[in-house]
C-alpha cells in the first residue's frame, strides 16, 4: 500500500508545479520611471513585444509593457498620456491631425494576392480582387482565365492580415462567407500552392516560389513598389508619440528601427522593413 503513495504524491506535486504560473516581464525590478508603455495596433503587437523583450535584455532595469487594443485605442491612449507610444496600422484621420502626434514609421505591411503557379492570370484590378473575395466571380473564366472554379481562401477574423485586407482591398465590404477560413499564413500558402483554382492573400514577406503573386492594377508586389507607394494593397505601420520621441521612448524606437530588429523580427513577421526605402 505504501508504494502507491509514491505514485499519487508526484502526481499532486506535478499538478502544483503546473499551477505555479511563471511571472512574465523581463525585469521585475523596474520602477515606474523605468517603464515604457506601448499600446495600440494588434498588427504591431508581435514586433513591439519581442522588441520590448530584447530591449529589456539589453538594458536591465527597464520594463516595456506592450498591449494590443487596436490602432484607434493606441492613438487615443498616447494622446491622453496613459501610454508613452501609441502604435497604429493606419494613417492619422483628419480629426487626429492636430493632436500634436509625431510619426515614426517602423515598417510597411503589404499584402500579396496569391494564386496557384499554374494559373495563367497575371494581373487583377483592385476592384476585381474585391469582387473575387466577395463571391461575385466564381469561375476564373469570367476573368479571362481557364474554366476553373475559384477556391476562395480567407483568414480567420483574429488575423491582422485579414483586417488590413478587409480595409484596403475590400474597402470594408463583406467577404464571401462560403470561403474556407484558415488560421494561419502558412496554411493559406500551402493550400493555395496545392489547389489549382485557389486564391488567397498573405503578407508580402511570406510569398515564396510555391505560389504566384498576381500584380494589382498592373503593379507587381515587391519591396520597391511598396516603398514608392504604387502597390495598392499596402499600409504603413506607425509609432506615434506626443512630440518628438525622447528619453526611453526614443531609445526604444531607435532600437526597433535598428538593423537588428528590422532585418530580424520585422522580416520574420512578414513585413517590409522601413529601411527598404533607404536602400533604394
Amino acid at each position, binding site marked *: 500500500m505504501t508504494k502507491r503513495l509514491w505514485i499519487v504524491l508526484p502526481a499532486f506535486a506535478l499538478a502544483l508545479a503546473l499551477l505555479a504560473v511563471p511571472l512574465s516581464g523581463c525585469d521585475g525590478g523596474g520602477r515606474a520611471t523605468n517603464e515604457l508603455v506601448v499600446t495600440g495596433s494588434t498588427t504591431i503587437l508581435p514586433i513591439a513585444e519581442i522588441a520590448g523583450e530584447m530591449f529589456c535584455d539589453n538594458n536591465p532595469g527597464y520594463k516595456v509593457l506592450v498591449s494590443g487594443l487596436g490602432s484607434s485605442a493606441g492613438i487615443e491612449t498616447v494622446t491622453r498620456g496613459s501610454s508613452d507610444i501609441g502604435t497604429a496600422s493606419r494613417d492619422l484621420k483628419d480629426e487626429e491631425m492636430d493632436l500634436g502626434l509625431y510619426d515614426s514609421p517602423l515598417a510597411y505591411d503589404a499584402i500579396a494576392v496569391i494564386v496557384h503557379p499554374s494559373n495563367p492570370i497575371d494581373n487583377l484590378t483592385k476592384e476585381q480582387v474585391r469582387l473575387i473575395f466577395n463571391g461575385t466571380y466564381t469561375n476564373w473564366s469570367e476573368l479571362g482565365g481557364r474554366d476553373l472554379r475559384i477556391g476562395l481562401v480567407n483568414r480567420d477574423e483574429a488575423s491582422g492580415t485579414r483586417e488590413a485586407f478587409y480595409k484596403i482591398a475590400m474597402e470594408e465590404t463583406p467577404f464571401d462567407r462560403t470561403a474556407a477560413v484558415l488560421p494561419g499564413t502558412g496554411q493559406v500558402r500551402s493550400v493555395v500552392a496545392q489547389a*489549382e483554382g485557389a486564391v488567397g492573400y498573405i503578407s508580402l514577406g511570406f510569398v515564396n516560389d510555391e505560389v504566384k503573386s498576381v500584380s494589382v492594377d498592373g503593379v507587381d508586389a515587391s519591396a520597391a513598389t511598396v516603398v514608392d507607394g504604387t502597390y495598392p494593397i499596402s499600409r504603413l505601420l506607425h509609432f506615434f508619440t506626443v512630440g518628438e520621441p525622447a528619453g526611453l521612448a526614443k531609445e526604444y524606437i531607435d532600437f526597433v528601427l535598428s538593423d537588428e530588429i528590422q532585418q530580424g523580427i520585422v522580416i520574420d513577421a512578414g513585413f517590409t522593413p522601413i529601411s527598404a526605402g533607404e536602400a533604394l
Partner: protein
Amino acid sequence: MDGDPRTDVDGTNKGNLQLMSRSTYIKETTLKNLFLLCAFVAVMGVALIFLFVGWRGWPLIADIGVGSFLGGAEWNPTDGLFGILPLIWGSVVVMAGALVLGTPLAVGTAVFLSEIASPKMRSLVRPAVELLAGIPSVIFGFFGLIVLRPLIAQMTGGLGFGAVTAWIILAIMIVPTIATLTEDALNSISPGVREASYAMGATTWQTIYKVLIPSAKIGILDAIILGMGRAIGETMAVLMVVGNAPVFPEGVTVPLSTLTSQIVMDMPYAAGDHRTALFGMAIVLFMVSMGLVAAVRLISRFQTSISGGR
C-alpha cells in the same frame, strides 16, 4: 495485504483482535479518503463545468431566444447574428458521414479480431487498433490537411476542404472506439451459443451473420453511440480539414464548419455577446453528450431487463 484491513478500518474488531498496527490504520484511512477525494473531484469537475458554461452562455440565449439561437440560419458575430443552425448542421453532417464510413470498418475489425484472426494475427492487429486510439487528434488533422486534402482537391478541382475529407479522417478516428467495444460485446457472448451454431452445421460466416451479430447488437449499438460522441466532439482534426465556413454547404467538397471547430476559431478574438454565444454553443454540445451518455445507459438497462427476465 495481510489480514482483512476492512474489519479494522470499520472499527468493528477494535480491542478484540489487533489486525493491523495504528500506523497501518492511519495509512489505510488516509488512502481511502484520498480516493474518495479523487472520485469527488471528477463529479465536481462535471458539475462546475456545467454550471460555468451555463452561467456564461445562458444570458445570450435568453436574450435572443432559444429559437433564434438554435434555429438562426446565419452565424455572423461581427454583425450581431448568432444563429448556430449552420454549425449544428455541419456537426451532424460530419458525424453522420463518419459513422456511415466508420461503423462497417470498425465492426468488421471487431469480428475479425474476435472470430477469424489466429492468435498471432490478433496479437498484431489489436495493438495497432489500440495505438490508433492513442494517436493525438491533431496528428490525424495534420495528416488530413497535408495528405488527404490535396488528393481530394485534385479529384474535385476544389480546395479539398469539406465534409468528405472530415468523414474519412473521423471514420478512421472512431474505429478504435467502436471496434474495441464491439469486440467486448462479441467476446461476452457465451461460447455455448457459438458452439451450438457450428454444431448445427453453420459456416463461420453464417455464425457471424445470423448468430453473433444479432446477439451482440445492443453492445454494438452502445459502441456506435459512443463513436458518435467521439465524432461530434472531435475538434482539432475537424478544424483542420473542414475549411471553417459557417454556412450551409452546397456540397460535400466545399468548406463548412462545426460547433466545436467554430468555438476554437472564434475564441482568440471573441468578446462580449460573441463570447457568450460560444458558451451557448458549449451548452448545446454538453446537452448532446449528456443525451448520448443517457442513451447508452438506457440501452444497457434495457438489455439487463431483457436478460434478467429470462
